[in-house]
Every structure is written in C-alpha cells, then in structure tokens.
C-alpha cells in the first residue's frame, strides 16, 4: 500500500472510534445487580391499612419494580406508557416511591420528623397517582431512599424485571420508551413466564 495512505487510514480509524464513543450513552452504567437476587425489603404501602410489602411476597411470579417520584420529571414522561401497559395486565407492576419528600429540592426536611415526612410522602404519592392514573398493583414508600440505595438507584425513573426466583433479570435506568417496552421488556417477561 502507498505509504501516504497510512495516515488517512489512521485518521479514518480515529474518526470511527470517536464517532462510536460519542454515540454511547455515558449514563448507561451496567448494573452489577442484574443476575443477582433482588435485595429484600419490607416497606409500608401507600394504602396505609395494608400490611407492609416486600419482594418475598412476589416469590414465584415474574414482576416489575418501577422506581418513581412525584418530583421526577422523566417519571411523568414515562407514566402514560406504564398506565397503558397495566391495562393489558401482562405483568404485576409494583411502584417504589423514592424519596418523595426529601428528594424534592423545594422542601427542607432537616426539621421534619420521619413520621411527619412519611405521612406527607403518602399523601403526595396518593395525590399524584389519582391525578395521573395508577398503573401499579401497589406502591411502597421508600421515604429515606435506603432501599433505593440497595437497588443501586441513581436516576429515577428506574425499572427492574424480577423473575420467579426473585433474581433481577433486567434494569432500565431512565424512562422506558415504547420501543424498549415492546422489544426488550415484554419479550423478556414472556420468556421468564415460560421458565
């Protein structure tokens, strides 16, 4: 090959490398939790008269856990899709309301007792769901975000698909799009249900 062609080849290789790098999403951090058992928890539900809920209650079922909050803008964007999905009754959908009160930057919780904060979180979550529609079979309140930490939550909304053995099989960080739902989530859920 002509020796003057080599710099051109090198340049093209560099351009390809940069083009690929720029089109990757740096927010997509592979979760180490995929393939691991879903962390256990026991949290109060938004419907206060019901007993606390935990992943152990879903043993033997394929289910989805969706982390959301009323202050989260992307959750609002994702919400209609979840509502539409829940009407098809394909999979139980559990809501994990993440830091409803203390996550809201307008509210200072430093002088609020945890009981007051929990009560407020419940009211706010209920109000939001009755306003925007409730796609969840039930919603639990992660008031201080500690359970979210166990699930490696760092950007709501996040969605987990958990199999019959309680193992996390898929994690989506950021809103679910119709494309992801139809091409990834639903086929995976169908497959896991057969297993």
């Amino acid at each position: 090959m002509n020796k003057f062609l080599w710099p051109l080849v090198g340049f093209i290789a560099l351009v390809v490398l940069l083009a690929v790098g720029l089109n990757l999403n740096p927010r997509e951090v592979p979760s180490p939790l995929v393939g691991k058992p879903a962390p256990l928890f026991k949290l109060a539900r938004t419907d206060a008269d019901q007993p606390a809920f935990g992943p152990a209650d879903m043993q033997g079922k394929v289910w989805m856990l969706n982390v959301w909050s009323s202050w989260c803008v992307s959750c609002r964007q994702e919400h209609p899709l979840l509502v539409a999905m829940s009407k098809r009754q394909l999979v139980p959908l559990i809501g994990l309301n993440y830091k409803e009160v203390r996550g809201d930057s307008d509210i200072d919780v430093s002088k609020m007792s945890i009981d007051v904060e929990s009560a407020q979180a419940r009211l706010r979550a209920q109000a939001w769901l009755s306003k925007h529609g409730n796609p969840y079979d039930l919603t639990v309140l992660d008031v201080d975000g500690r359970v979210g930490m166990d699930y490696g939550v760092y950007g709501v909304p996040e969605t987990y698909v958990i199999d019959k053995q309680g193992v996390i099989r898929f994690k989506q960080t950021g809103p679910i799009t119709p494309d992801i739902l139809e091409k990834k989530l639903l086929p995976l859920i169908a497959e896991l249900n057969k297993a």
Partner: protein
Amino acid sequence: MKTLRTLLSAATLALTLLLPTSNLLAKEAPPEVQDPVAEKRIQALSEELRCLVCQNQNIADSNADLAQDLRRELRGMIQAGKSDKEIIDFMVARYGDFVLYRPPVKGLTLMLWGGPAFLLLLGLIALFTYLRKRNQVVAEQRPLSEEENRRLSAMLADQADEAQKNNK
C-alpha cells in the same frame, strides 16, 4: 460629639449587619464523628468513589442528593466499624466498578489499563523500524562513480542546450 455618635452608630450597624451573616454562613452541621482518624478515612474513601449523578465528581465534591446519601451511609458504616474493603464492596455491589475512580484490573478493564502501555510499545516499535530504515538509506548514499558522474554532466549539458533553444 455628633460625629462620634454617628461613627458609633455606623459601627454598630456594621456589626449587626456582619454578625447574622457569619451565622448564616456557618449553616453546615458540625461533623458527627469527632475522631480525626475516622474523619480522614471518610475523606479518603469519598474521594475514591464516583458520584453516579455528576459522573466526573467524586462523592466528596458532589452536592447531588445521591452523593449526600452515600456520604451519610459511609459515615454510618465507619462508625459501625466496617473496614475500607467492606465499604468499597458495598458500593461496588450496588453501583458497579464504575463507582470506583480506580477500577480493578480484569478482563473488561484490560484495555483501559493496558491501552496506554500498548500504544507506547507500538510507537516505540514504529520509531525503531523507521530509524533503522533511515540508517540503511544513509548507508547507501555513497559518492557517485566515474561513470555516473559522466552521465550526470551529459544530462545537465543536454538540459542546458534545450533551455537555450526554448529561450530563442
């Protein structure tokens, strides 16, 4: 006398203006762990851990909610007597190797760690082959032989003739 009084009231005003501000600035809570060794560990560990929200900051620098939560968790774990390794494992189990500013050497990170050394090696090989080639070229540059010299002058003479013809 009047000027003194104005001066005094001005000074008081200045003081009253200054005092509350300094109080407001000191809003940050005092560290819960007074033990300087523990404080140092918290500082060192939180500088090693990446904040996943603002990805180019560590959790010591970041003001994101998540970083604050993780700092609180870190403090709690240190108070509970956890070792550095246990704390790092806790973070990696939740957020992956990405949370570490110094990712471990393994299959996936081989290119990251080995890449620069590999490129340096490649560059050195290229440099040496180039230098060797150049040395050969230099070695081949010997003075022209008698015969070659004659041909060269004949060629130059021909060219000079042609140029003269063209000028006419």
